[in-house]
């Protein structure tokens, strides 16, 4: 008798709990200040508009995402991922197609829109330098790879992703419009010349720490981190020469429990005002083409979308196609 009661009670709780769960939406991103900004700029207006709560989760983990989809136990509705991963995951059937009758893509930067993903924000790999720690700051990728002119440690992004290989090829004199398909042999040969001088950063905070402490006085950093460093009082100098752009993307894992709410969330997140608010908070560029008008000119000036004169776009579809092969070579080379 007791058991029956407990069982009924449990069933009742579950019956109440399940619809309650449908009222929320789970958003996963990379944590830190960027996710805080996403929460303020996107989730809060979304909740105001729809009355739905947004639960923040993370960090994003591609292994976890794949496990969720394969086990049909998806707990994330909207996920912030890197652009090349989004293109690959879409092709591999891990993502839901986006509903562009809900998401207005006419205002979005077409470089960052696919059937399965839209840009989240976009950033540039720039040449950053702690001007107090060195006699002169490198201005170009060729400078950054020139250990005779610029002796000392330099820092680069540790993971296999668009950015470092492109920088090596540009430094070696490859024209920006001739980068793809990437000449990996040439890139690794160029990277070999500075390998002993590289300190790798694996997260944004670490890149800031390395530069600020002059452990590595210069290197390739996300532009938003340079903005933050400059704000914190470090004499941080940024060179936008051939800044290499890549974007984060918003995707919906296949089998996400709150599909409709997810589409609505993405619609809000990519609309002009929330995009402008995020850009203001992070120093990364909005992917909504109308956001720039909503920002004060001082902030807008520091964003990658004002640095298009010598901008190099990383080719996400090339990376999606070759992500695995490059990755394996990349890590093998690093460990050598």
């Amino acid at each position, binding site marked *: 008798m007791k058991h029956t009661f407990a069982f009924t009670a449990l069933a009742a709780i579950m019956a109440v709990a399940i619809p309650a769960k449908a009222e929320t939406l789970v958003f996963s991103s990379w944590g830190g200040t960027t996710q805080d900004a996403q929460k303020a700029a996107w989730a809060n207006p979304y909740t105001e508009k729809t009355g739905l709560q947004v639960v923040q989760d993370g960090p994003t*983990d*591609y*292994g976890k995402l*794949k496990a969720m989809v394969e086990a049909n136990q998806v707990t994330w509705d909207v996920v912030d991922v890197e652009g090349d991963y989004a293109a690959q995951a879409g092709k591999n059937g891990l993502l839901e197609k986006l509903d562009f009758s809900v998401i207005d893509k006419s205002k979005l930067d077409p470089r960052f829109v696919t059937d399965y993903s839209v840009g989240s924000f976009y950033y540039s790999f720039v040449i950053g330098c702690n001007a107090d720690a060195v006699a002169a700051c490198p201005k170009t990728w060729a400078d950054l790879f020139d250990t005779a002119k610029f002796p000392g*440690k330099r820092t680069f992004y*540790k*993971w*296999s992703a668009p950015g470092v290989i492109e920088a090596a090829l540009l430094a070696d004199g490859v024209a920006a419009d001739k980068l793809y398909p990437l000449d990996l042999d040439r890139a690794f040969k160029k990277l070999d010349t500075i390998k002993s001088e590289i*300190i*790798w950063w*694996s997260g944004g905070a*670490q890149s800031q*720490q390395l530069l600020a*402490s*002059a*452990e590595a006085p210069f290197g390739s950093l996300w532009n938003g981190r340079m903005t933050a460093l400059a704000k914190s009082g470090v004499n941080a100098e940024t060179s936008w020469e051939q800044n290499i752009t890549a974007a984060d993307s918003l995707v919906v894992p296949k089998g996400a429990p709150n599909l409709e709410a997810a589409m609505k969330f993405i619609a809000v997140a990519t609309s002009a005002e929330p995009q402008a608010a995020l850009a203001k908070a992070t120093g990364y560029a909005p992917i909504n083409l109308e956001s720039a008008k909503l920002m004060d000119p001082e902030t807008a000036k520091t964003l990658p979308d004002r640095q298009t004169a010598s901008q190099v776009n990383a080719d996400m579809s090339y990376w999606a196609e070759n992500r*695995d092969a490059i*990755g*394996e070579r990349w*890590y*093998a080379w*690093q*460990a*050598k």
Partner: protein
Amino acid sequence: MSTYSDASSVSAPAPRALRPTGFSGVVPALAFVAIFFIVPVAALLLRSVLEPVPGFGNYAELLGSATYLKIFANTFIVSGLVTAISLLIGFPVAWALAIMPGRLASVIFAILLLSMWTNLLARTYAWMVLLQRTGLINKMLMGMGLINQPLPLVNNLTGVTIGMTYIMLPFIILPLYGVIKKIDPAILQAAALCGASLWQCLTRVLLPLAVPGMAAGALMVFVMSLGYFVTPSLLGGTANMMLAELIAQFVQSLVNWGMGGAAALVLLVVTLSLYVVQLRFFGSQNTGGR
């Protein structure tokens, strides 16, 4: 995963009266082990021979590539180094703890435990700050005029070894302390009365008696080091990558679970073999004799 199996070698078996008798008493424990350990390991094993294509291709690639073999070698070198240094530093500390007055010992224990309870990432970052080119240690050495150029203490083997040894020390001091504390001081007194020098007391009486504690502590530190991720990843360079980071790359970055599973299983097999060896040589002393 391996540290759980370790624990069983340290704890003494329960008195007979407290043990559940018959098969039914074991069922919950067996079910727990099956659900939380055997099933996931089996799934991993299956993935490693099924993905991306069925066969032993992943193992062939893993064991046939110079890069991956180098990572295996690195893993063992770093773990061995950390274990050896931990023993060297840990033994005198454990000995001192065992013979010092209780109140002082408890203060030192509190320090040990506090350091263990402090967030691992915070401790690792703290080492990064201490060891870097412009860090406290280099500044101090340069200020004293001992060196002209900052020493490369981090992002290399030195950094990993220092950081990991620091984190592993409590794991070797605690079991050693337990064993040394149990040694009857009268034995040492007897040795001294019979004319043994301090050195002889140490090498011929204390050390042999402490061997089970050293073995248990060393195995624990070695096995934990084999699977260590955070500290080597932050304080090491890519040239001394360890196995755990390789597995993380396969799983998270390359999303290649076949290779990740294969690497994880190689690690598991090595760990279990070490455990078996330890049981074979030191097991009877650890569990108080059979």
